[in-house]
């Protein structure tokens, strides 16, 4: 196991207009964990990830690898080894698959090397092309990729950045059943030497691949533990799964919905 752990204490995010999206969250994610963040729409999952990556302003404490990172500029946090994906597959549409990976790989490069055309791509780019199965599409503009392929490319871009912690926002949304299976296996492989946090609405997917689960509700952590512990938690059943969920919870699980904000 490797990767860095994330420790969040009393994290609060309030938007202009007074809406509190994250309301005092404590979170301990150990190195090498494969943590799923679940919760109803508007629970604050995406905002939590936005706060950790510096895209929204937050108060409280976020420690990564033993250092406080709250308030740092977005690109600094990224260079510390925290990578994320967005809810809608987000890549540089007009650049090729290879260029997308190359940009992610070289983000920290100094200004002097920026004007030089390079003959060879970093090894990590080739490796990421292979892992994500995009090698054959390397010269295509990323904008023409299918949705699932874009999502794989996003993960590839995190791998070449050499991140230690991956925050994935609904990585399998819109994927077919088979695509989900292989994406889940990819996540497990990645989590062997990275810490991975996944926001997901698909409960079957969560049950198959999660090592631990945190349930968010109304900006707070409602429950935490293994899949079995969380599912047995009465509070979780009430706010999320619905009372009638037992004995077969999957029957009552809401259809994956895209979360706003």
């Amino acid at each position, binding site marked *: 196991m490797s990767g860095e752990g994330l420790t969040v204490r009393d994290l609060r995010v309030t938007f202009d207009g007074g809406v509190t999206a994250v309301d005092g969250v404590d979170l301990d994610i150990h190195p090498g964990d494969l943590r799923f963040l679940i919760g109803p729409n508007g629970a604050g999952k995406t905002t939590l990830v936005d706060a950790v*990556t*510096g*895209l929204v302003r937050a108060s409280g404490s976020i420690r990564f690898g033993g250092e406080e990172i709250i308030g740092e*500029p*977005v*690109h600094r946090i*990224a*260079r510390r080894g925290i*990578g*994320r994906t*967005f809810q*809608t*597959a*987000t*890549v*540089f*549409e*007009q*650049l090729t698959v290879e*260029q997308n990976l*190359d*940009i*992610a790989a*070289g*983000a*920290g*490069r100094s*200004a002097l*090397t*920026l*004007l*030089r*055309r*390079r003959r060879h791509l970093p090894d990590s780019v080739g490796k990421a092309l292979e892992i994500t199965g995009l090698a054959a599409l390397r010269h295509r*503009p990323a*904008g*023409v*990729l299918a*949705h699932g392929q874009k999502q794989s490319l996003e993960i590839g*871009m995190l791998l070449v*950045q050499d991140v230690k912690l991956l925050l994935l926002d609904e990585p399998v949304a819109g994927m077919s059943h088979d695509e989900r299976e292989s994406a889940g296996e990819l996540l497990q492989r990645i989590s062997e030497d990275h810490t991975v946090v996944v926001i997901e609405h698909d409960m079957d997917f969560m049950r198959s691949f999660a090592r631990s689960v945190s349930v968010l509700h109304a900006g707070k952590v409602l429950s935490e533990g293994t899949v079995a512990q969380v599912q047995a938690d009465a509070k979780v059943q009430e706010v999320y799964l619905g009372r009638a969920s037992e004995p077969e919870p999957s029957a009552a699980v809401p259809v994956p919905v895209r979360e706003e904000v």
Partner: protein
Amino acid sequence: MTVILNQSFTGVSIGAVLLLIALGLTLTFGQMGVINMAHGEFIMAGAYTTYVLQKPIENAGISLLLALPVAFLVAGSMGALLEWLLIRRLYARPLDTLLVTWGVSLMLQQLARDVFGAPNVQTTAPDLLTGSVSVAGVTLANSRLFILGFALLCVCGLAAILRVTPLGRRIRAVVQNRDLAEVSGIATGRVDRTTFFIGSGLAGMAGVALTLIGPIGPTTGTNYIVDAFLVVVVGGIGRLRGAVITAFVLGLLQSVLEYSTTVSVAKVVVLVGIVAFLQWRPQGLYTVRTRSLV
């Protein structure tokens, strides 16, 4: 026949000037979406750089060659400073940006008036560029040929930077998706400033070239700024190829119409034509096609 060829060359050289002044804008306006009304004053700054350099350096050829990189640095630094001081606080507020940079443009014009005086000044063109050559009965002014060549060189240079260098890819990446660029570890603020530096520097070099076709004054830039924006808008925002085609088409139209009517009528017809074109194709000549879900 000679008349047609002569007018065509005039059109091409008007196009080359348009292209040169619009090139910087394809970066700052086309790529970054900043409406910088002070862009014309960077052109003016480049023109005065030539004037200032001619004082100590008597040889007009050497001073002109020297003026190109110096004007790039002078105008580029002014642009980077403007971006850092004002524009970066105003991203996503286009109307405010327009007003603020318009104010800056007025201040820079007054500054030029205070330093160099209100009347226009004339620079000396190198001997090599004052003559003309005749090809098949067509008179080609050397200075116009120089501007044409220089404009094409700048286009190729800019295209190369945007396409092949990692810097260009970063500029495009930040333009396409700022959040994604940031979480990928790119210092987007620095990329913005670099982009603005290059765009404004190109305006400065355009100013140097303009000294070859007429006297220069505090309002030199303002006279060109509207045309420059038109070229970028008609070409399709963010598309270098569109700007090149548009500049030459507008130049040719202008010269043909000027020949058959008058200068003012030509100007009006071209403007009406642009308005009609944008009604038909609001996105300009070229657009980007993707399967984006957003």
